[in-house]
């Protein structure tokens, strides 16, 4: 019988920009279903990746790197005494030099690592990479390190636009002019320290090589991939294994120049004009897409751990070309008690997950908004809720593009059907007809009783279509145009001005239609201030220049009217709710937001009974005659302790998957109300939600070109279970 092994790993935080530890741990777990304990080393209890069911066995709090190497070593040795470790795999760039310096002392205690020397890591940091490439005749984009932010405009102008503004450790933003360069440089420098890098933007495709080098520097394993889809932040969220001999050869040529041991990632851009590869970055750890290597049958994390445990292994076979991943999300709950235990003792076991119950009723329900490539869309959570609704037999995903991650979630969707991409206003009639035809086709082929649109930009279209859909037996439940208008961002400010929000607070608000308006509100509110588009966006600004930059950017994107509010500080809350056709609030799930990603979306939360708030919302919504779902956002002002209403969206929130996990299945309530069946919700507001915390992590899932092609060619993708 094989010996049981135990490995400690880091890199379980990061939320929507995931640190690589979770992906590496998933790959190890896929390889060693039994016989391996994974200890997740985390800096904060809210490292959601560490809590992911079925991956790590335990979480351990470790001191921040800023506290120095000795406290870290002492903590590792304390963990080692309780849970003897065979190996340690650090998965964050900043940690690798630290663990490298500790490697000898760790080895004496019996904890093995495979890491490069600190001086070899220093040679290829982002700041030093340009010099390394010059010395070794490796093509790289022209890069300038700017330690003084005052010099950013000068160097940016000299480099020309567009260019990348990069943090010294991580983070990158593409900018198109001097103002944007300064705007993006400030937060990157503040976060990562030491100034910023300005890098020439070379147009082309992005390619990656993940490698593991043996102790002697030779290549144990390599996987080369191409980013097929990058999100707004430039992160590769769909990628595929490629077999490019040129890239392979280049990576192997660079390897001996690095004098490397252990894992690393080379990032290249292949210039569209010349076809030449330019080295963009070297990361001294496994990449966050590394789970792809498991899909491709050449598991690099497993090869790394095997090499650490028994050095001198044979080279890993080449990964399967064409294997593909898409970055989706996984949502689950963790008992409050487990989090408390981690905070109290510094260690907690990852709770065992319960298998998901799926029900087979008589209703077919279609949901839109089923991707997480940019922001996590609510349709993914709605679908998971519907899977647990006893009345629902089939869940149909309505997707817009072959990249939508829901296409690869066959457990959540019986069928995925294509909706026509939203056009401009002039096309609304054609768009309505195309949408109606698409839904009718779904009904004829698979049955369809209820449709739940989950994207803001769809609501008006589905509202217009509702009577016609109803005639063919497809029900929906949405607020009418008047109700929507009354509770829009602008409408709420009018209601607040007339003191007609029924006891709910609302922040002081000004409408900005011109630059002059902006100057005036800047004088009135000062910094920090929030600028909001009427439809979707909101950005915090901390200076007049930032306010002007954001105002210009919103206007360029078509937002001619904006709202300005002073920034409120306080805990953020959300309420998801459903109203029936008469405007009666059937049920609601209030929660406190505990973990927010960089883009302000909820990745951790706790359901919290707020009966007074629900009474106030029920009164307001009843008075307005609201129908269907709503996502209410609030802040409890830390100064006044008053709950301030921020906005109301006419759809479920992206965290709605939590609802079914704690048995408050609001999408089920909506379906029942839409088909005029009795509600399943209790008669009074719930006051006990079971003490389960909502958490979300990124999850790389297998994607396939064949599924994308079928979706493109046939307009639908039918999964096995019918």
């Amino acid at each position: 019988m094989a010996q049981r092994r135990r490995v400690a790993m880091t890199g379980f935080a990061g939320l929507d920009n995931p640190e690589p530890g979770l992906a590496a741990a998933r790959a190890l777990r896929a390889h060693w279903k039994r016989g391996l304990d994974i200890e997740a080393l985390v800096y904060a209890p809210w490292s959601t990746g560490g809590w992911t069911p079925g991956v790590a066995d335990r979480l351990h709090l470790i001191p921040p790197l800023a506290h120095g190497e000795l406290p870290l070593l002492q903590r590792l040795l304390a963990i080692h005494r309780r849970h003897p470790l065979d190996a340690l795999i650090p998965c964050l760039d900043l940690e690798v030099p630290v663990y490298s310096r500790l490697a000898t002392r760790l080895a004496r205690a019996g904890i093995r690592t495979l890491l490069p020397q600190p001086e070899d890591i220093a040679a290829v940091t982002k700041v030093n990479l340009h010099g390394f490439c010059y010395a070794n005749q490796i093509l790289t984009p022209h890069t300038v390190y700017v330690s003084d932010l005052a010099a950013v405009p000068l160097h940016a102008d000299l480099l020309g636009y567009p260019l990348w503004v990069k943090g010294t450790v991580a983070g990158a933003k593409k900018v198109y002019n001097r103002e944007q360069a300064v705007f993006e440089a400030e937060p990157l420098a503040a976060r990562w320290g030491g100034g910023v890098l300005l890098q020439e933007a070379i147009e082309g495709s992005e390619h990656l090589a993940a490698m593991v080098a043996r102790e002697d520097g030779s290549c144990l394993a390599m996987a080369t991939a191409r980013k097929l889809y990058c999100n707004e932040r430039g992160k590769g969220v769909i990628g595929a294994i490629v077999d490019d001999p040129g890239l392979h050869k280049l990576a192997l040529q660079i390897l001996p120049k690095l004098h490397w041991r252990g894992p690393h990632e080379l990032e290249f851009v292949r210039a569209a004009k010349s076809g030449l590869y330019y080295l963009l970055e070297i990361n001294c750890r496994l990449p966050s897409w590394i789970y792809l290597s498991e899909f491709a049958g050449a598991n690099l994390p497993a090869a790394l751990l095997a090499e650490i445990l028994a050095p001198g292994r044979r080279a890993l076979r080449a990964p399967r070309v064409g294997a593909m991943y898409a970055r989706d999300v996984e949502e689950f709950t963790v008992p409050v008690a487990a989090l408390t235990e981690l905070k109290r003792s510094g260690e907690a076991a990852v709770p065992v997950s319960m298998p998901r119950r799926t029900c087979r009723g008589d209703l077919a329900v279609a949901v839109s908004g089923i991707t997480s490539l940019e922001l996590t869309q609510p349709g993914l959570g709605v679908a998971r809720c519907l899977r647990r609704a006893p009345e629902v037999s089939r869940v149909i995903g309505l997707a817009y593009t072959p990249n939508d991650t829901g296409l690869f979630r066959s457990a959540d969707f019986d069928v995925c059907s294509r909706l026509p991409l939203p056009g401009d206003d002039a096309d609304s009639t054609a768009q309505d007809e195309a949408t109606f035809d698409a839904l009718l086709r779904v009904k004829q082929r698979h049955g369809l009783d209820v449709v739940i649109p989950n994207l803001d930009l769809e609501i008006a279209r589905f509202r217009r279509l509702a009577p016609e859909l109803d005639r063919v037996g497809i029900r929906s439940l949405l607020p009418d145009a008047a109700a929507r208008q009354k509770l829009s961002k602008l409408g709420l400010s009018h209601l607040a001005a007339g003191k007609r929000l029924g006891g709910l607070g609302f922040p002081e608000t000004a409408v900005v239609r011109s630059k002059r308006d902006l100057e005036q509100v800047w004088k009135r509110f000062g910094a920090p201030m929030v600028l909001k588009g009427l439809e979707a966006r909101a950005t915090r600004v901390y200076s007049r220049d930032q306010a002007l930059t954001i105002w210009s950017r919103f206007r360029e994107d078509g937002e001619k009217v904006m709202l300005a509010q002073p920034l409120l500080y306080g805990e953020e809350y959300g309420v998801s709710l459903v109203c029936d056709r008469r405007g009666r609030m059937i049920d609601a799930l209030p929660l406190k937001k505990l973990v927010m990603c960089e883009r302000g979306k909820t990745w951790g939360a706790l359901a919290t009974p707020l009966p007074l708030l629900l009474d106030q919302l029920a009164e307001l919504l009843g008075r307005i005659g609201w129908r269907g779902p709503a996502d209410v956002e609030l802040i409890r002002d830390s100064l006044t302790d008053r709950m301030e209403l921020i906005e109301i969206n006419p759809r479920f929130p992206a965290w709605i998957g939590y609802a079914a996990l704690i048995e408050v299945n609001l999408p089920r309530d909506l379906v029942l109300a839409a088909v005029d069946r009795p509600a399943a919700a209790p008669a009074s507001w719930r006051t006990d939600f079971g003490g389960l915390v909502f958490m979300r992590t990124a999850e790389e899932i297998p994607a396939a070109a064949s599924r994308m092609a079928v979706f493109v060619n046939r307009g639908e993708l039918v999964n096995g279970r019918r």
Partner: protein
Amino acid sequence: MSTRHQVLRLRVQIRAEADDEGDGGFLFNKQTAAICACNGTAWTVVQRLRRGGEADDFAVALVAAYDVTAAQARKDVLALIKELRSLDMLEAR
């Protein structure tokens, strides 16, 4: 030399996979990961591109398989060839 009289063939690194249930398929460039979904008409041409041939031959195959005029078939073939070239999926002799 115009596209019409060149012998065109899928590059060796292109994998062509038929849709088991439909009449189309997709092409995947193993070096660049470029993907091209092909409907039934395009797939008819792709079948011939695997063996190699001229654009006019492909148009004839389309006319034989579908209710389409020779002019339309030629136009469709040239559009597909342009698309595949932009994805670096074709080689010409």
